[in-house]
């Protein structure tokens, strides 16, 4: 087992990419992700990482260069955030549809306007349907571990899909945490070399990204969908193996004091740790409350999440993104869809908060829970509740 070091989470993510021995990094700097690619550029320039670092003129080009690199079978990494992720948008679909195992860290950031470099999940939710595997992490250790797992998952021949690791901008990307880095030998054992089955190779030519007329497009899309859903089994296997080797275990849905709880609070990302403190505090006061953390956003873990919430009376979902003119929070919307046809299900209350870097404190989560319980009893005229807005 390696050493525990104090390091900024962004730099730790870059170090994880180095441990994964990436071949190509094509990236464009954007707050709050910049430190990740800056550190990777440094590692390459100093000769500590034998990789091609491609400085590009935009995120659209960054992802496009990643596609080319991945297509020749190179292990490919990039990182972005907010507007950068949106500028990549169309290329994200190409990566997943061409089945190229690119790994990308996203330092989740709010979208303009007004210009905001601070964190929320607006950027993620806009790329929800791009066909990428999407994993949320809560702290620096989880970020490092899941970058390593991401390559293993993405490059598995049963998967061959790109993976996003979502790291909350600033709240997570810019904090200094004690991180346990595995030894290079351990990583090499866990992560075999990338062997893309049909790479671009002049001695054995292939055409990639060709056009698909109506006679074949539907079949191509269905193959992609079946594959993304089936990827869950591989994700579970990889997390289990990671746990066996490194003693840190991950699962698609994580529960905290939820087994006997009447009220459940569902969170994603770094705010989950704050919410856990609220759960401890409220349980100490005798409230029957627990917490569900959704780690695997895509493929959506329907069975696990249904099982996790079926015994609760109330489920309060916090979203850090707004679906304008729609149901409020995208995560809550999906939870309602997942539960609608179930016989046994909790009442679902939707909250949207923590937008554009606005913090939610332990007391804030307590207020969300109390208001949520009240709404579950009395109802509300609103589709969703907005938290922390001066009205």
């Amino acid at each position, binding site marked *: 087992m390696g050493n525990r070091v104090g390091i900024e989470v962004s730099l730790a993510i870059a170090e994880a990419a180095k441990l994964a021995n990436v071949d190509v990094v094509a990236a464009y700097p954007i707050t709050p992700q910049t430190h990740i690619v800056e550190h990777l550029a440094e590692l390459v320039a100093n000769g500590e990482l034998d990789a091609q670092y491609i400085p590009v003129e935009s995120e659209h080009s960054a992802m496009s260069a990643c596609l080319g690199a991945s297509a020749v079978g190179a292990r490919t990494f990039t990182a972005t955030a907010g507007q950068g992720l949106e500028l990549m948008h169309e290329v994200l679909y190409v990566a997943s*549809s*061409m089945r*190229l195992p690119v790994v990308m860290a996203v330092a989740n950031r709010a979208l303009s306007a007004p210009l905001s470099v601070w964190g929320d999940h607006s950027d993620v939710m806009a790329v929800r349907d791009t066909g990428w595997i999407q994993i949320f992490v809560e702290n620096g250790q989880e970020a490092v571990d899941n970058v390593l797992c991401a390559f293993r998952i993405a490059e598995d021949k049963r998967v061959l899909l790109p993976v996003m690791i979502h790291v909350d901008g600033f709240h997570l990307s810019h904090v200094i945490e004690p991180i346990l880095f595995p030894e290079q030998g351990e990583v090499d054992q866990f992560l075999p070399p990338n062997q893309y089955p*049909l790479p671009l190779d002049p001695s054995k030519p292939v055409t990639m*990204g*060709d056009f*698909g007329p109506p*006679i*074949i497009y539907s079949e191509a899309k*269905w193959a992609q969908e079946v594959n993304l859903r089936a990827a869950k089994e591989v994700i579970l296997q990889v997390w289990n193996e990671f746990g066996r080797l490194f003693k840190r275990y991950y699962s698609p849905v994580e529960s905290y004091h939820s087994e006997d709880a009447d009220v459940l609070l569902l969170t994603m990302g770094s705010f989950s740790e704050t919410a856990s403190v609220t759960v401890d505090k409220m349980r100490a006061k005798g409230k029957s409350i627990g917490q569900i953390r959704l780690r695997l956003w895509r493929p959506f873990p329907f069975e696990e999440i249904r099982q996790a919430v079926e015994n609760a009376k109330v489920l309060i979902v916090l979203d850090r993104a707004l679906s304008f003119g729609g149901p409020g929070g995208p995560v809550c919307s999906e939870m309602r869809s997942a539960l609608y046809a179930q016989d046994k299900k909790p009442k679902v209350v939707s909250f949207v908060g923590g937008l554009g870097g606005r913090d939610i404190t332990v007391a804030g989560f307590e207020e969300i829970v109390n208001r949520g319980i009240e709404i579950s009893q009395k109802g509300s005229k609103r589709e969703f509740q907005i938290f922390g807005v001066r009205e």
Partner: protein
Amino acid sequence: MPKSESELTWKDLNIGLIVTEPGNARQYQTGYWRSQRPTYDFNRCIKCGICQLFCPEGCIGQNPEGYFEADLFYCKGCGICARECWTRVITMVDEEE
């Protein structure tokens, strides 16, 4: 006997629809798109080949008698050959006729 395009299921496809057989775009029958087809009065043809030069599909070649003629497997029926032919060999006719 390989499956035709219309028989392929999603399970038959290569990952990411990767094409492993070079040059198989030849099998793509763009002639399906046509609503008009060229017809020829070769008595007027001087074998100049201007139709071949202008054909955007590149589907015009010389037949055994040396006359220039479109390959209807690929011809999309745009009619540029008929417009450019100065001896008026080519007449476009509707496909349903």
